[in-house]
């Protein structure tokens, strides 16, 4: 299984980053990882893709990044991950423009299903 687009992962926790890269890679996705929002913005992708981003990060957090990208018209579907998804945070994230909010720990089948759903429109 492979997709013509890249999955971008932003998480300050290296274990999360590398485990996700490993799991998605063996499933057939092309994966690019970034330690934080600044790193991602510095190497802003031009191709189509899906962004998986942690909410709580040093510097710009996931919701702020989502809001900024929406404002700048960077139409990358965003999956936000959080350690604790309470109602208020979920609402805020979706209003900011996130496609989905997932609560950690996320099982691989759930992650794959979500990526497939979010990336379905990308063709």
């Amino acid at each position, binding site marked *: 299984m492979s997709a013509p687009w890249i999955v971008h992962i932003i998480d300050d*926790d290296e274990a999360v980053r590398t485990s996700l890269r490993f799991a998605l890679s063996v499933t057939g996705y092309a994966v690019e990882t970034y330690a934080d929002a600044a790193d991602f913005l510095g190497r802003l992708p031009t191709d189509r893709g899906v962004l998986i981003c942690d909410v709580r990060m040093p510097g710009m957090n996931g919701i702020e990044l989502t809001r900024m990208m929406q404002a700048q018209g960077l139409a990358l579907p965003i999956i936000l991950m959080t350690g*604790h998804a309470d109602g208020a945070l979920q609402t805020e994230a979706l209003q900011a423009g996130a496609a989905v909010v997932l609560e950690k*720990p996320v*099982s*691989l089948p759930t992650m794959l299903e979500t990526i497939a759903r979010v990336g379905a429109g990308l063709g």
Partner: protein
Amino acid sequence: MDWRSQFEMFMPHGMCLLWRPELMSLHVISDALIAAAYFTIPFVIFWFVRSRDDLDGGHRALAALFAAFIGLCGLTHIVSIVVLWIPIYIIEGWLKAATAIVSVATAGLMIALAPEVLKLPSVRTLRREIDAHHATLAALTEARVALALRADRTETELRQVTQDQRQSSTLLSTVIEAVPGMIYAKDRGGRLLLANKATLDLIGKGWPEVEGRQARDYLSDPREGEQVMADDRRVMDAGTVEVIEEIADFHGNGSRVWLTTKVPLGDLAQGITGMVGVSIDITDRKRMEKEFLHISRRSAMGEMATAIAHEINQPLGAISLYLGGCLTLLADAKVDGRVISTLNLANDQCQRAGDIIRRLRSFVSGADEIRRPVSIMRLVDEACGLALLGSRENGVASTIEHEAPEAWVLADRVQIEQVIVNLVRNGLDAMAGTDKPAMLVSTGIGPAGMATIIVRDNGPGIRPDVVDRLFEAFVSTKGVKGMGVGLSICRTIIEGHGGKIWAEPDDGSGAAFHFTLPLADKPAEGETGDVGHDAA
């Protein structure tokens, strides 16, 4: 001698004067004037005596004698004139004799009365005395006026003081009645001397009924009354002000907590005559303080749980994804089927750990709990499966007994599993030094529609001094190893479910923890009963 013969025998006295007209005239005129004057005097005396009614008998007699003496003297001068021409010397002689008698009597009486008369004050003396009296009278009058003025002033002052006193008394009673708490005064024997409206309202009786009564008479619980009276006595014996918390029940509606200030009346040197007390109901405040403490502890635990959840979820997520990746890699490879199933089990446990953390966090932060009908047998079996991991290797003989395998309870599965794991783990810890450690977990149906779960060990048991405080937060029997929150959380969970949790010293050795949960109906096929692990 015949009195008529005198006319022939004697010559008129004029002859002695040789009838010389100038000498005759001198005698006649002088005697006449003397007689006139002498006759006037008795009349004056008579008038004087008549006018002075304050004279005593002696003075009156003296005055009469004097008048007679003067009158007779006057008469002798008249006769002296007559004898110039008519020689009535005998008559004259007898007249003089009579005059002499009266004169001597008068003189005698005067001598006798002289000391008396001497005592009579002179007009000047009298005047002086009268003046002195007038002065005294004036001084008296002045003093009386001054006294009257002073009396008037004193009366005004008294009226002012009375008014002031009435005002301050009104002020005091208004303040006493306006205060929302109780104000009362008692004598040395603890008998009521004064009680404000709030106090009487609480006692529920009028003043006449409670005047002079003691706390043991008007409080519902006599032991509380005795305690209040002991507090009163201590304050009065020591003579110092005390602020204490008292417990008193006035109407049998339950004891309330009162913050009481007790002030002794008088001082130790002069003697304490009683005490004044002010009490405010702080029952609600105490309850709120307790709740606040509970909430702040819970919010601290909530913050901690959130932080822990975040930190643990990261590696859990990583583990889950690594496992997922491995399973993907192995899907096409030819490997032992047990490897795949074991990796799946590991993944399940990973999700379960995330589940537990999520529930724990939502529990401590007071979020919604998910209660569904749960099979008590499955619940206990699964929780024990987790809690007893590794215990068999340590020589622990574990038994699980289900008296009613079909029973269901209404519970949050994760929370109750936490309780069971906690109790079983505590038991295993307690049996660390036991020869033949044995754990018995049993379920059954108790009274009042409750299921009972008992976790029994054969460890050293529970010390009697901690058995009552066992479920309080931060009480640990494990020394430095335990935080002492486990059983406290267990109690909160079980009571939150409407059940009870308690410890009993086991019949033999060891400890037995009991808890109950409300029974539920088994859900019909197809309904969502929480029967096992459903991956998040």
